[in-house]
């Protein structure tokens, strides 16, 4: 088993970490929703209308370009609402569960790709380049599976996995049949995994060591023309379960973490559950909170009347603004004003202690001035700053040359946190990838 040591990156320790690994059953959701934006690259074409009945695992919509890509309902019930936003963009497909357990059963003896596409698990995977849902019919060079989440307050994927780890072997078998290359699994130090037919690599180092893309870049980097798939171990186990039982399990274990949560813990709920019932009685203060589906770096800001978003395993609740009108914050000598740089005094009290952080940007957007900030947060052989500049200026050749095919927005999330110039790096990378994808097709 190979070991890769990553020096770059940083572990942010926030208040509100989970101390107890017990999993509590959450209240049954009032509504469940599928958010098309969670599956970037899939342009929805509805298959079900409002008022129609769906079984769990039955397709709600398919992709405009590849009809085989289906996105399914996680529960059995009726389509309550197809919520549309600007230019008829579908914001959410809301389903009222009927409490039944009617679930679609798949013929798992068929073509594995077809089964995956129809099951709705296909859209849980991502491909590089472009960090989108994989294009059907393209055989990936390799598959990279991350078995741990290194983001701030992230759930322990071994806990989330629980008894489902029995399906890992089957999942690897399925993926091996879909690629000519190998299935790589990245684990953290001390984590053990039963995966004889996969290439297991241990990653030692701070966040973003748990990003599948970072792991890929440090084992077998993605070159121009390559396609690789990335996913987490939970998705892998779901695939294994599908090919064992014939059914997709839409239950999910979700970590509720963050400073504004009364008692951070794990819950068991269903994908896309509404937050109102999920978070009932969990928060200390709803109005002053920011609910994030996912972690503080890459998650989505979600209102309390919305739904759990993919990848359905993490909710973080932080204060929206815990120091309004902070007087001359730039002059602060207070060690509680957190900065990874020594311009502030927080390094004197130790950066490893949990801190409170709100969602303020704490500065205006500027041109890139300080050097090396992005590179220090990006453990890849990439000149992050030059790549970002190439994206901003729309220089497609430069983007390719500097390695845009290897990255996803999440890889720049930590750099975005650390950026003195406060640029929206993830948005910039996303737009660059989308632009390149449009250009190449």
């Amino acid at each position, binding site marked *: 088993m190979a070991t890769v040591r990553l020096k770059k990156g940083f572990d942010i320790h926030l208040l509100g970490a989970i101390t107890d690994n017990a999993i509590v059953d959450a209240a049954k959701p009032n509504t469940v929703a599928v958010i098309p934006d969670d599956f970037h690259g899939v342009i929805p074409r509805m298959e079900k209308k409002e008022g129609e009945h769906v079984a769990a695992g039955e397709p709600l919509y398919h992709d405009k370009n590849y009809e085989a890509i289906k996105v399914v309902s996680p529960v059995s019930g009726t389509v309550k609402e197809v919520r549309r936003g600007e230019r008829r963009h579908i914001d959410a497909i809301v389903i009222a569960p009927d409490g039944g357990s009617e679930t679609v059963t798949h013929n798992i003896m068929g073509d594995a790709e077809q089964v995956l596409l129809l099951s709705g698990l296909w859209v849980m995977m991502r491909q590089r380049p472009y960090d989108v849902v994989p294009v059907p019919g393209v055989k990936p060079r390799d598959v990279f599976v991350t078995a741990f989440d290194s983001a701030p307050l992230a759930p322990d994927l071994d806990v989330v996995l629980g008894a489902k780890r029995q399906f890992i072997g089957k999942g690897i078998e399925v993926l091996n049949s879909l690629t000519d290359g190998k299935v790589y699994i990245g684990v953290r130090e001390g984590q053990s995994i039963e995966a004889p037919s996969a290439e297991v690599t241990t990653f030692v180092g701070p966040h973003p060591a748990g990003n599948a893309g970072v792991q890929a870049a440090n084992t077998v980097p993605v070159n121009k023309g390559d396609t690789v798939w990335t996913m987490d171990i939970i998705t892998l186990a779901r695939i294994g379960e599908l090919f064992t039982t014939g059914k997709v399990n839409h239950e999910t274990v979700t970590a509720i973490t963050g400073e504004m949560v009364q008692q951070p813990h794990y819950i068991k709920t269903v994908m896309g559950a509404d937050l109102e019932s999920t978070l009932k009685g969990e928060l200390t203060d709803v109005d002053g909170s920011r609910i994030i589906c996912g972690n503080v770096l890459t998650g989505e800001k979600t209102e309390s009347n919305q739904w759990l978003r993919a990848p359905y395993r993490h909710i973080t609740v932080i204060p929206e603004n815990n120091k309004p009108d902070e007087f001359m914050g730039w*002059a602060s000598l207070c060690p509680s004003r957190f900065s990874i740089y020594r311009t502030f005094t927080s390094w004197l009290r130790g950066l490893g202690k949990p801190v409170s952080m709100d969602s*303020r940007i*704490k500065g205006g957007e500027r041109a890139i001035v300080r050097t090396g900030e992005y590179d220090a947060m990006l453990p890849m052989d990439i000149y992050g700053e030059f790549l970002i500049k190439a994206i901003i200026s729309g220089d497609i050749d430069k983007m390719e040359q500097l390695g845009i095919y290897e990255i996803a927005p999440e890889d720049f999330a930590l750099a975005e946190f650390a950026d003195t110039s406060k640029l929206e790096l993830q948005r910039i990378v996303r737009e660059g990838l989308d632009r390149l994808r449009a250009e190449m097709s």
Partner: protein
Amino acid sequence: MKALRKFMDKIQPSFRPGGKLAKLESVYDGMETFLFTPNATSRSGAHIHDGNDLKRTMITVVVALIPALLFGMYNIGYQHYLAIGQPDAGWFTMFLFGLLALLPVIVVSYAVGLGIEFIGAQIHHKEIQEGFLVTGILIPLIVPINTPLWMTAIATAFAVIFAKEVFGGTGMNIFNVALITRAFLFFAYPSRMSGDEAFVKVDSAFGMGDGSMIDTFTGATPLGQIATNVGDSLQMTNILGEPISCLDAFIGLIPGSPGETSMIAILLGAALLLITGIASWRIMCSVFVGGLAMSALVHVLPSATYPASMLDPWTQLCLGGFAFGAVFMATDPVTGARTNVGQYIYGFLIGVFAILIRVYNSGYPEGMMLAILLMNAFAPLIDHCVVSSNIKRRARRAATKE
């Protein structure tokens, strides 16, 4: 603070479009973000952000310049009272004189520079950026003290407009703005920038320190003296004609630009910049290494034709603006090399060129300014080469796979 917040909220409407003072909107926004950390929370991407911003970064550099600034004030007074024959005027009198002499330069530099920035920000409806905070304090420290204020004003205006604003403002300039100010002065008014009376304040400051020059007065800087040295022996002297040593130059009680004379004060600032991680230690160290290497090389072949080659390497680094340039100018991240490997090359070449110009160009006794400006021009090329190697590596990786 509440009262101040209320006041700012009350006057806010008149600065918005349609208000009486709408033309000063950028100024208001600048004031507001100066007083209060913006309440804006993140809308896309990461939900938490580091506490550091450009304001803090720039202010830290200004703090790092304070030792050099204070010592510079004292030294202005010290040199002046030496020149008028009152060497026992007391340190406070000397400091106060220096303060009064330097303050107008600081005011002019900030007034002109910030004024142009404010106007620029208002024209483009952008936030006022912090770039000039540092430039504004660098200019008084590197411009000879006897420079007339109007010259400083013109040079500052020229530098801010043509070296910065035309390139897009803070973070976009190719050349160091403070050095462009000094370069403009040196090439536009060469007679006022060298010789006996450039670096020592000869007249009084706001009526203070009146007196006539002593007869034996020579205010030339050590480097100026070296440039005009004749013969095989080299002896630098102070205003009174007494010899000065490497130690004098290290402490800084010698004629020179206000901020540049004292190695001790500069090293204090360097320590702060390195501890806070704002300045690149790669650049700073490699400038000194490059300077030492080149001075050692020229010292191997001392020649009376090039008197500066007779200086030993340590003295070479202590004199003139070498240390100040290495610590505060070469490390400017905007105009310097941005890749780690590039920073070593960039810094080293600055050191080499500074000494090369100083020694072998007798018409121009100080080489640091030109060396940094030259390497500013080459920094993008250095980075291009470094990044190209990454690009080539990636291309090779893709090719071997097939």
